[in-house]
């Protein structure tokens, strides 16, 4: 278990979040909260609304009902650029890097929402390269030409460049070899130890529980089970449905 902070201040509060795409309602009233410096996992099978939930948090997709507050301040109806500036950064599913741009340009895009002096920007690049030395070696390489694991590092690094208070990571392990997933988990822990709270959406339940202190299980747009990772690991329903035990 990483960075025990169950008693920390509340950072994100989501109440009764509902909505979807056009006429298809995907989420039916999600309640969820994240404390400062915590890693929270969202698990569940395909198509239960995990990514939709993240898209609503980052303001890309409008929601129909419910409230979202970050650090006690409502971020409802805010456009994505506002949400990023408030401190939520989203690492999308499938990395979605700017393939024909260099690694460094991708990182600079990550800092787009923050207008700052060149010196500060350079310092932030150094900090992120410190986390991911492999990206420093490849900073002028085109992002699309890197391996899947390196692309995922670049996507996380790009997310960090926004200096988030809360980092949303959608499918960290998707399509990656177990050894790489292990390495990426190390980075996620390191980032968390610097004080960044993380919501991790993950289909690989064991990876998710290993990283997160608490987890929510999504089923057809609702939270059916939630608790600490240990509680969920011991839960017979979770064991049967997600761990095949």
């Amino acid at each position, binding site marked *: 278990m990483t960075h025990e902070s169950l008693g920390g201040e509340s950072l994100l509060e989501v109440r009764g979040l509902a909505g979807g795409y056009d006429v298809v309602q995907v989420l039916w009233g999600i309640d969820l909260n994240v404390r400062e410096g915590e890693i929270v996992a969202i698990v569940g099978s395909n198509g239960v609304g995990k990514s939709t939930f993240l898209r609503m948090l*980052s303001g*890309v997709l409008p929601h129909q009902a419910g409230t979202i507050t970050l650090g006690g301040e409502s971020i409802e109806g805010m*456009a*994505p*650029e506002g*949400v*990023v*500036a408030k401190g939520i950064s*989203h690492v*999308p599913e499938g990395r*979605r*890097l*700017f*393939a*024909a*741009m260099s690694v460094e*340009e991708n990182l*600079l*895009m*990550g800092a*787009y*929402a923050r207008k700052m002096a060149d010196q500060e920007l350079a310092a932030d690049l150094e900090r992120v390269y410190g986390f991911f030395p492999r990206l420093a070696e490849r900073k002028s390489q085109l992002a699309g030409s890197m391996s899947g694991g390196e692309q995922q590092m670049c996507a996380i690094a*790009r997310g960090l460049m*926004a200096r988030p208070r809360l980092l949303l990571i959608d499918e960290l392990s998707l399509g990656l070899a177990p050894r790489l997933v292990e390495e990426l988990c190390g980075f996620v822990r390191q980032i968390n130890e610097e004080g960044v709270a993380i919501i991790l959406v993950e289909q690989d339940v064991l990876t998710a529980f290993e990283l997160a202190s608490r987890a929510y299980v999504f089923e057809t747009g609702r939270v059916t089970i939630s608790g600490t990772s240990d509680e969920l690991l011991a839960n017979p329903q979770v064991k049967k449905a997600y761990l095949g035990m």
Partner: protein
Amino acid sequence: MVYAQILINSILLGGIYACIAVGFSLVWGVMNILNIMHGTFLMLGGYVTFWMFKLYGVDPFLSLPVSAVTMFCAGYVVQRGLINKIVRAPMFMSLILTFGLQLLVVRLAIYFFTGDFRSVQPSYAGFSIPLMGLSIPFVRVSIFVLGVVLTSILFWFMGHTRTGRAIRATRMDLDSAQLMGVDIGRIYAITYGIGAAAAATSGSLVSVGFAISPVSDVEFLSKSFIICTIGGLGNITGALAGGLILGLAENFGALYLGPGLQNAIGYVLLILVLFIKPSGLLGRKGFE
């Protein structure tokens, strides 16, 4: 000697063609809008230069910034106020909207400016530089040089500024750019404004070496279309290559096939390229 002269003329023409097409390519590549207004902005830019010369005696090359800035503002407003409302709709919608605007503006231009062909005739219009038995027209060389300089500035802007990066990011992955905090509506308006400014600048240049009328916009629009398709969409080097190829093809075509077919050659090239490499000679997949 004739060939060398035609080669020089072709390159000079190709440079201005590239300059004409570059804004069209940018707008199409970034927003997937077939911008029928492109020729219209070009024509208006030409008139800015013409009237400033005619009424106030301003040298045509000095009125370039005025032409660029006014059309940038006009383009920004058109995109923010109108095109952004339908930009998510199928491409057909943007075609109809910009076509309607084009008709409106061109009719207004005919009403106010009359349909006469106009050309800016500064005192140095007839100068030419003799070089090893060839004659290099001064105005065309200046247009060429300025066209290349302005296109290079645009190239640099796209590659090295925060806004330029955001425009490229938006072209590559709209959703992802939005997650980075890019205000898409604003970036679209800026892109369209840059497209209009580039068109207007080339219009100002064209009004010196060539002639313009309110209806010449269609001619320049079709040239832009051909150049972008030949060279490949969405990149500035594609517009440069397409412009040079069209310039060469037109001039040498006129030599061998007669000047009557000069304008048809571009369309033949267009069809050939569409058969052989639909993404354009320097085009990348996904930007067809």
